């Protein structure tokens, strides 16, 4: 069955890649830390949660609640996982970037 893949914004790609990097440890706090460590930009909680809600509505990610922990006042963590449509969307976006970079001699990319 062919998966319908929506176009991604820049921050959506960043969030999807962070979830993929974190695997089954991906929830709000770890995602913000991963994004901060990789991009040197710390997203605001509001921006992250609205993006996650939007991507869940688009079917790019799915979420499940973990067990409540005392450190969080007995509140559960909401863990995220990238769906097949999400993987396809981020792969397509990255292919587009590579096409655009092909033939360009950018020093940062050359050393990456």
């Amino acid at each position, binding site marked *: 069955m062919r998966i319908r893949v929506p176009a991604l914004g820049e921050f959506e790609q960043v969030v999807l890649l962070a979830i993929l990097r974190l695997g089954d440890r991906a*929830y*709000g*706090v770890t995602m*913000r830390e991963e994004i901060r460590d990789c991009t040197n930009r710390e997203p*605001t*909680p*509001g*921006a992250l*949660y*609205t993006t996650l*809600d*939007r991507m869940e*509505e688009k079917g790019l990610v799915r979420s499940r*609640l973990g067990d409540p*922990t005392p*450190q*969080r*006042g007995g*509140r*559960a*963590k*909401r863990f995220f996982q990238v769906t097949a449509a999400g993987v396809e969307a981020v792969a397509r976006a990255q292919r587009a970037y590579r096409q655009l970079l092909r033939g360009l001699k950018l020093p940062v990319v050359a050393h990456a």
Partner: protein
Amino acid sequence: MPKDRIAEGLLVLVTSRERAASIVGDIMESSATRGRVWWWSAVLRAAASLLWGGFANSPLGMLGLAFRAWLMGLRLGVCSIIIASILGAALGIYGIAQQTLTVAVFILCQFFVGRWLAWRAPGRELSAWFALLIIGQVPYTLPFIVQLARGHPFSQMWRAWQPLD
């Protein structure tokens, strides 16, 4: 009341209960080494983003819902005047007392409109209220805009406020 309960109560107005709880949990976890200002800043920014997100993710659906609520409020408003008049006449209440009765019935009707809207937009109650606020202003602002476009004296007043080229 503990600050986490207040924050959760605030976030429940803009997202579902489970999501509000997990967001407050995340903020609690991140705020271990940060102060009270950071806590409230994070909560308020999350609430503002979710409020706007709830509206911006489906603006037409939200405005349609708000329009239906506005029409319902209009109908109930007319009904409240009729009911208050009938009740006033039946109970022999006139003047200020009748006006108070009308306002009380009107507020009760608006309460039902609010309940209906909250029932139709679970987890996005505040976004729906925001949309109703926008829709509710249209009947007042639209004639003003039309008058401006037609070159009404309002527009001359407006031009008078503009800086000279």
